[in-house]
């Protein structure tokens, strides 16, 4: 049986891992791809890709990020309340 302290640490490690993974996806569509906009210009579903990305694509990724976070983190909190760690 893990101690209270260990369980808390494990929960926080998991939170950080999830946060970092989502932050990575966020950095990609917010800074990396728009920064390379002139180099990734190809037609995409009838749009120039950079324009599609900055006006719709990235926004849908954001939506996915916040919903995934709310869903995963909620599930992790519930699991922690039941006492089975991460």
């Amino acid at each position: 049986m893990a101690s209270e302290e260990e369980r808390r640490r494990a929960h926080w490690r998991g939170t950080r891992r999830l946060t970092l993974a989502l932050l990575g996806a966020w950095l990609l569509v917010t800074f990396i791809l728009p920064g390379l906009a002139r180099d990734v210009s190809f037609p995409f579903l009838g749009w120039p890709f950079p324009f599609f990305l900055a006006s719709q694509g990235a926004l849908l990724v954001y939506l996915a990020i916040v919903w995934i976070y709310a869903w995963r983190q909620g599930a992790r909190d519930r699991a922690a309340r039941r006492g089975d760690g991460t």
Partner: protein
Amino acid sequence: MRDVLAGAFASRLGRYYLLFTIGFLAFVAVLWALERLGMPRSYLGYAFLFATMALYAGIGIMSRTADVAEYYVAGRRVPAFFNGMATAADWMSAASFIGLAGTLYLLGFDGLAFVLGWTGGFCLVALFIAPYLRRFGQFTIPDFLGARYGGGIARAIGMAASISCSFIYVVAQIYGVGLITTYLAGVDFSYGVFLGLAGILVCSFLGGMRAVTWTQVAQCIVLLLAYLIPLAWLGLHTAGTPLPQWGYGRVLESVGVRERQLEADPREREVRAIHAAREQAARARVASLPRSWEEGRAALHGRIDALRSTHAPLSAIRAAERVLSSYPADPQQARRAWTEEAALEREAAAPPRPHAEPFWSAETDPAQARSERSGKRVNFLALVFCLVAGTAALPHLLMRSYTTAGVQEARTSVAWALVFILLLYISAPALAVLVKYEIYTAVVGQPYSDLPAWIGTWQRIDPGFLTIEDINGDGIVQLSELRLAPDIVVLAMPAIAGLPFVMSGLVAAGGLAAALSTADGLLLTIANALSHDLYFKMIDPSATPARRVTIAKVLLLVVALIAAFVALLRPGDIVSLVGLAFSLAAASMFPALVLGVFWRRANRWGAVWGMLSGFAVCTYYILTRYSFFQSILSLDPGDFPPWFGIDPISSGVFGVPVGALALVVASLLTAAPDEETLALVDFVRSPARR
């Protein structure tokens, strides 16, 4: 039991707001019918203005309260879905509703930095701020800074930073309100400002956060309908689909074809050459200052004397005198005015900007074009950075995470907020492209004799909004002869597309809802910072709850009046004003808020130095580089070249790293935080109970 009650509360709210939505749609339909029966336009404008204002005031009065928890955090029981709507209304300001599509119209791809920044920031709010603030569970942002960083100093700095960025932001909203009421009701701009102020105050004054929350939900519905319905209509008109958001790629392509035509058109080239010559002339006058200023003034005096001595008609003399009175008062003013004139002419002399092309440059020389493009790219990324970091630090938005019933609700509330916000932010680029298509095809190339009526309407409201002049005298409108201010693109859109006037009224009502809802949230933030953080926590901790709420209300009134006064000075366009607030918020609070949760070693002195230095760097950069302040402080722009070519709107790109670095260094140089503080950090990190 508690969940069952909360569920019943949420479904009752759902019913109310569904009825409200249907009622509002019916109201619009009735007005449309009345318009077709011949009701005059001014009445339609009044109907929209007063009906929506009365509605918000009504909700405000119904939700009036003097209870502390209700006044500051709406009783902490707002369901996530509705809190998301209120957050969205809080968020979508006059800048988003009125300014954004116009900025996109002018800047094309480069304007999308605002779209990315204002939506992407919500990821940071969701991941780094909102759930932790809710877990902490007090009243204001300075509350958190004070508790985490051991007391008075950190709280005071957080309070000062909250107040300054919210204040800049609220000035921009009140300015927007003035603009819209002027357009809707035809009143003078200054009356418009105070009329709008009344609408803001009724709500936040009586019921604090509780009234503001329930009004904001209604305003969110109004503003989204007011954006999406006219856009659907415009879409049917221009793109043949009521959902242009998904299909405007084709229109974008047609705009591109038209851009290339206009680029090559000989008459357009002729007008551009005239603009280029005017730019050169303005530069020559700047170069030969102060002689050119004296000569110009002497020439005007000479002309007036000549007119007088030849007994010219009084109107001609008056006109000449008007030219003289608007002539720069001294050589320094002349330098500023003529440099600005040269910049405007230079813009007008450029060929049409390819809308979808990132970081476009009009330069023909390849080396210069490359450097201009890389400058634009850096500014694009810097602006996105400031806006996302600012989003995650603006107190009026973060305050909303206190009003939900629990941590998980705070997370889903952010997610719902993003859903509603995206409805507008995905639509704005579509609106910009469709309006551009309309202007490029239905206005450009038309004879001056049958200009559409909206052009005259907007010129009458303020010549600064729209200038059109037959520069080459051919009687045909060239694109380079027309200049639109970004702030009018959305408001004028229904008229541009030839929609019924009721749609113009609807758009204006939506803009009003956007500006009012944001102003409500901001004023509340400022007044709460003063009444809760300054008065209750620092001056008189024994104050009774009733007294605290009274003080908050009085301060609200004072702050609102000061903000209205500043708005009357018209300090710049809405979007750039708001941008300043973001940089300031990001630089002063973002590092302290995030590191406060994610770095246990961060301590009081780190936070103090971090916030102060971030704030100072940002303020210095804004004061010395933003033209509005340059002219107030009478600084010569030539003495203050921008660092790395970064625009003043993105000053946070210097402020945030400096602030974060100062926080880390000062924390490491001083003692680690005490046990109590560490326990607080562990508490906000720990799994939430609900």
